[in-house]
């Protein structure tokens, strides 16, 4: 039991820092570059992503273990996962809209964007590839999304300050954001070999 908990902790640290979804696996670059202007929207996006990736990890893991695997339909995983994720995002959007308008105001605009976020599908596929069971998948999903949230909030914080800096015109916008991402990726590369 103890070994299992240690294993979960290692998955958590590894997914959130060492194999950070954005800075070392390059999943979900579009929202990372697009919605990191302000800390407030970065937090909103981060929370929405944590919610969706964790839920998607649970569902995809269940579907794989109890439907695809027993029926030997593993090769259908890409199709099934993307449908599950698209349906999940739609469903979450409807439920949140109906029952919690305040939460919908905070997350609403980010939810549709998440379907096409490759981090969601990527994490679901990684769970299967690494042979994670249900609990490990949940931990991995949550930690990956946490890693995403940490990086997007850090990036938004830096960009808010950078708005006041005198940046060469050629580097304004995307280029300077990518240079910042380079430095962040280097810093996160320092975590390599931690586990």
């Amino acid at each position, binding site marked *: 039991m103890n070994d299992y908990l240690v294993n979960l902790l290692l998955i958590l640290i590894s997914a959130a820092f060492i194999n950070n979804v954005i800075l070392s696996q*390059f*999943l*979900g670059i579009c929202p990372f570059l697009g919605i990191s202007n302000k800390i407030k929207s970065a937090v909103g996006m981060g929370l929405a992503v944590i919610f969706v990736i964790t839920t998607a990890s649970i569902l995809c893991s269940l579907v794989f273990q109890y439907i695809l695997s027993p029926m030997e339909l593993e090769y259908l995983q*890409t199709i099934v996962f993307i449908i599950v994720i698209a349906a999940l995002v739609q469903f979450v959007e409807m439920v949140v809209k109906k029952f919690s308008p305040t939460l919908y105001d905070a997350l609403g605009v980010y939810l549709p964007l998440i379907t096409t976020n490759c981090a969601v*599908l990527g994490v679901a596929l990684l769970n299967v590839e690494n042979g994670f069971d249900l609990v490990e998948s949940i931990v991995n999903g949550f930690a990956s999304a946490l890693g995403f949230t940490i990086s997007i909030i850090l990036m938004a914080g830096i960009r808010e300050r950078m708005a006041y800096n005198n940046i060469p015109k050629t*580097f304004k916008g995307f280029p300077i954001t990518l240079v910042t991402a380079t*430095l962040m990726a*280097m810093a996160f*590369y320092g975590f390599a070999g931690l586990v």
Partner: protein
Amino acid sequence: MNKYLERLVNGLFKENPTFVLMLGMCPTLAVTTSAINGVGMGLSTAVVLVASNVIIAALRKFIPNTVRMPYFIVVVASMVTIVQLLLQAYVPSVNEALGIYIPLIVVNCIIFGRVEAYAAKNKVGLSLFDGIGMGLGFTIALVLIGSFRELLGAGTIFNFRVMPESFEPIAMFIKPPGAFLVLAMLTALQNKFKLPSATNGSAKASALACGGDCASCSGETYAANHAANLEKPNKDKDLRKED
């Protein structure tokens, strides 16, 4: 120009998905650690794009508009699965190197972008050539970025030694930070060519690439160019008068 040829040129240059439209950044950054990976990823994406474009274009009159997205998802995901199975069977080394980025072609915005914006509204033949053009444009971009990173990060291109033995590879370029840095420089260059500069015509000072901020510019040449440029509008006026 022939309209089929025009589609090819459009995908390769005018609307190159990577360099001009900046779509599909995740695979662009993730798999370009070497030129050969760029070829593998580019061609796999191209095959998926061509097949999806043709199928969607052929079915475009039968797909109800309100539920077109689920249709597109299923078609694209099926094509990706077929490509993945083919890679596993015939070129397992490529499949191994690209890992989860092959199934992730499903969520590549280039595919959905083309299917939604082009194939859903145009004939099969044109959609076929649009897919080929865009796919090849993406492949060429990935190979270029991959070659560049491999050259600096390992001193080779397509595993052939290019740099002299004394060259110390800059390992960072084949690591994640290198991907971001290369893309940063690429987008900066793109901005540089798009923005009017002090040397290409009579741009207004505020529209210049350097911001017309000559006080903080240490390059005297640029200052001289800029000064010459400020006089230009008058010259242009004089010329027009002579006409």
